[in-house]
């Protein structure tokens, strides 16, 4: 007969913290909060906010987060808990891609969203580099809008996203064709 002795009659007032969250209730509006691209020197290259925040808050968040991530060593994992958010980031060459998602979100799929976005940029710019994103920041935004809308994946097919962007470029070239001559003579 096993004697079960409990030292303290704490009738189970301690229980595992994570099951405090009931399944079901916990699956609430989970989505991406924002996405930041920044260089190794900490310069922001692209920012996309999916939650309403004031300029001041945005600046503070990006400053803090950029510092936090740049301080991490290369072999560390791509996820970190930051305030009450989950940060998923990955470095591609000189650029860091960083997404903030809510606590219950799937980190790996977010990592794949980053990767797919990089693939899209890469395909569009024919092996993308940081300069492409600096000089064509508006394109980077357009591609992101086709891929993610309101923080949710809109179109995950590489072909379809690029088709949409290229169609837009086509419209642009048609419209601008007579313009380029004028521009050559210095109307800048």
């Amino acid at each position, binding site marked *: *007969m096993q*004697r*079960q*002795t*409990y*030292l*303290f009659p*704490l*009738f*189970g*007032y*301690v*229980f595992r913290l*994570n099951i*405090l969250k*009931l*399944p*079901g209730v916990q*699956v*609430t*509006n989970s989505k991406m909060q924002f996405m930041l691209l920044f260089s190794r020197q900490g310069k922001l290259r692209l920012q996309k906010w*999916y939650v*309403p925040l*004031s*300029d001041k808050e945005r600046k503070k968040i990006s400053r803090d987060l950029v510092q936090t991530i740049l301080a991490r060593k290369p072999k*560390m*994992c791509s*996820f*970190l808990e930051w305030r*009450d958010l989950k940060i998923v980031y990955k470095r591609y060459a000189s650029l860091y891609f960083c997404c903030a998602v809510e606590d219950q979100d*799937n*980190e*790996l*799929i977010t990592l*794949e969203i980053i*990767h*797919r976005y990089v693939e899209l940029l890469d395909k*569009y710019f*024919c092996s993308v*580099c940081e300069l492409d994103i600096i000089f*064509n*920041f*508006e*394109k980077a*935004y357009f591609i992101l809008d086709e891929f993610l*809308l*309101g923080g949710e*994946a*809109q*179109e*995950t*097919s590489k072909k379809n996203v690029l088709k949409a962007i290229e169609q*837009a*470029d086509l*419209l642009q*070239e048609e*419209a*601008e064709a007579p*313009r380029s001559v004028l521009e050559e003579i210095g109307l*800048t």
Partner: protein
Amino acid sequence: MPAVSKGDGMRGLAVFISDIRNCKSKEAEVKRINKELANIRDKALDGYSKKKYVCKLLFIFLLGHDIDFGHMEAVNLLSSNKYTEKQIGYLFISVLVNSNSDLISLINNGIKNDLASRNPTFMNLALHCIANVGSREMAEAFASQIPSILVAGDTMDSVKQSAALCLLRLNRTSPDLVPMGEWTARVVHLLNDQHLGVVTAATSLITTLAQKSPEDFRTSISLAVARLSRIVTSASIDLQDYTYYFVAAPWLSVKLLRLLQCYPPPGRSAAQPPDRVSGDHPQQSPGAPQVQEGPALQRKERCSVEAIALIIHHDSEPTLLVRACNQLGQFLQHRETNLRYLALESMCTLASSEFSHEAVKTHIDTVINALKTERDVSVRQRAVDLLYAMCDRSNSKQIVAEMLSYLENADYSIREEIVLKVAILAEKYAVDYTWYVDTILNLIRIAGDHVSEEVWYRVIQIVINQDDVQGYAAKTVFEALQAPACHENLLKFNLLHSKFHLCSVPTRALLLSAYIKFINLFPEVKPTIQDVLRSDSQLRNADVELQQRAIEYLRLSCIASTDILATVLEEMPPFPERESSILAKLKKKKGPGKVPDMDEARWNVNGNTEHSENTEPTNKSSPPSLVADLLPTNRPRPASYSPTILSAGNMAPSHPFTDLLSMNSSPAAGASLLVDVLSDLSSPAPAPPPDPDPLMFVCKNNGVIFENQLLQIGLKSEYRQNLGRIYVFYGNKTSSQFLSFSSSLNVHTMPVDPTVEGGAQLQQILNIECLSDFSDTPVLNVQFRYGGTLQNIAVKLPVMLNKFFQPTEMTSEDFFQRWKQLGVPQQEVQTIFKAQHPMDTDVTNAKILGFGVALLSGVDPNPANFVGAGVIHTKNTQVGCLLRLEPNPQAEMYRLTLRTSRESVSQRLCDLLSEQF
């Protein structure tokens, strides 16, 4: 210049960007920008230059400078009929315009025109803009229009996608403005759409809507399952572009799995296609690892993580849980840091499920190793969390020891949390006082600075409430202070005083109080202490509190007689309140949103105490001291207490025991469960409850017992011998408040907070005592007012007789001897039944353990049979119970035999258990 210049390549813009990049200093950059701003301000612009300058402004803004003009130009671009100009205008607005801008009506006008244009590219730009800004004004203007775009038959696929996500964004920012209507039914059918992009976008929308009103979207379950199974079974080529590193439509799969998580698990008997699908996912991935290297591998496993999340959510299929756990076990040793992190995190959730808890425990060594060797603090943090989650009595010593040793060189950022966790674990699983005291002292020694006040208070509470610890604790603390023990009392004082000057003000105040108590207990040190109190450093202390204490204590010690002194300085009464402040602190750290705001301080002293030494099962005479032991020892017993044996029939409202629990109400006839509450109301008889299938809870203690579109009721329960405690969680799933919220049992009521905020959770604690064996389940009645209508819900609480089991280990001889002793025909109940679930040994083991008995191996000569033993504890008796389950895999039948010392118990247990296989 950029490597590639796509499109028109606005040359002026490129030049400007190059200039900025060439600026050597911040000042030069600001100068260049100001020059450009002045330049732009002065120009009268045509469409093209407007576009270019808006672009430059945007670039300047993104560099972090403020832009105070140009908004109007951007708005003008919206009405341009050139695509690129429109596009830049929209980009500027999505990046720069805040929702409160006064231009919003102009912007809305532009959007309205584009939405009406029937030009898909323009419509897309407008929808993107709404989704990006998502302001309330936009919701007011467009929320009613977008659903019709979404479900119209002639809408292009790409517009549908944008419309779905746009609606989602508006629904998040202003849910009240997005009307439900006949379009909702048609949205569900988008899950069947040919175009996977449309399905992906629609799934996101449906998931969010389904969380708000699950009933309206119930049809989406079958569609989602069908879609998911088509994805899983299709060859990767069929999905073409949507295949991502050999995984078919991963984003869509994850979203569909998420959608399924919005719904409670299907009934027990129903076929469970979602489980099957999700089960397939983890199965799929281990096939590949060795062959495929690198990224592809990782991608496969992402799906399994979400699938595992669904399995956890369903919590009903032990086999799947165990398999998921094994899968995660493999990830634990993976060389990819990210996977190790996720494995630890998911296992934390698995550890909380009763079926997989044991399976998780097998990985303890790996986890401890991770704690020691991981280089990344966030991974180590997860390892600590998991150790905390998997801790139980069997491994607590090891885990606490490991955590302590890790603490010595842990990162500062997580030290405090570890300290709290160690303190909680040490307290919860302590089997002897010396271990507890040693552990806590060790903890304080290692991480002194990180031990918060709450931990201290808690330790002191415990030490005071447990007489027998006091001696040991004092001695150990004393030894810790390293004193040679010659004249203990005086020395103790001197020793304490020698540290006095080093302490902070609050500690000094405590010490002064300690001194005055010494005077009472050890008169021989009185002069020494009086000297100290009299000294200038006390009487003229800058701190008012210290000064006052010193003067008061000094006067007290001089004037008062021994008697008075003894009365004034009597031992502190035990702390009546048993809520652990440590736990509260840990919860607070975890953020208020995740923890139901509850009032645990309401616990009374009786409910959570427990008899610690009473385990002989055959001892039929329950010792009358049982309840007395439940009370802290140095506290006077309530006069009204008498050790009368209670039973259902004779319990009067004014029974002594009810007094003891500070309540005054009569149980419903036939109920022999005593539910402890703190109010004195008694409830009206409830309507018969709908059946939430309480049988699901025979072998498990936690889960959701009720759910509709408004309310979710979850349950966690713990049982020790004849006492039980149930935590009931009421989750408000709506966004508005519940008013006049109350809940009552058919036995007693207790007050809860009468309002439940939208999205919030309320917790209620029920203390239960089993008085005699019973077969009826208590009914929980919940009433609240939601939007004017009174809601009335009755739920059966899954409190069954088997919850009061204590497992009993015994040898083969003992077992058969007792088996023979229970040979009277009425004591045995036998039933033969058909298996309702696959016959899996591990699952059966888990279920028998969950039932509450000890599983005895090597007892039955036939190893395929299951043999268990336990004791049912009720208030007045203990009923020994032996069981034997003989599976017959060929016939898919089981034979279950139960022998207990009481006929009614045998029958009830047999009924309960035979439903489980």
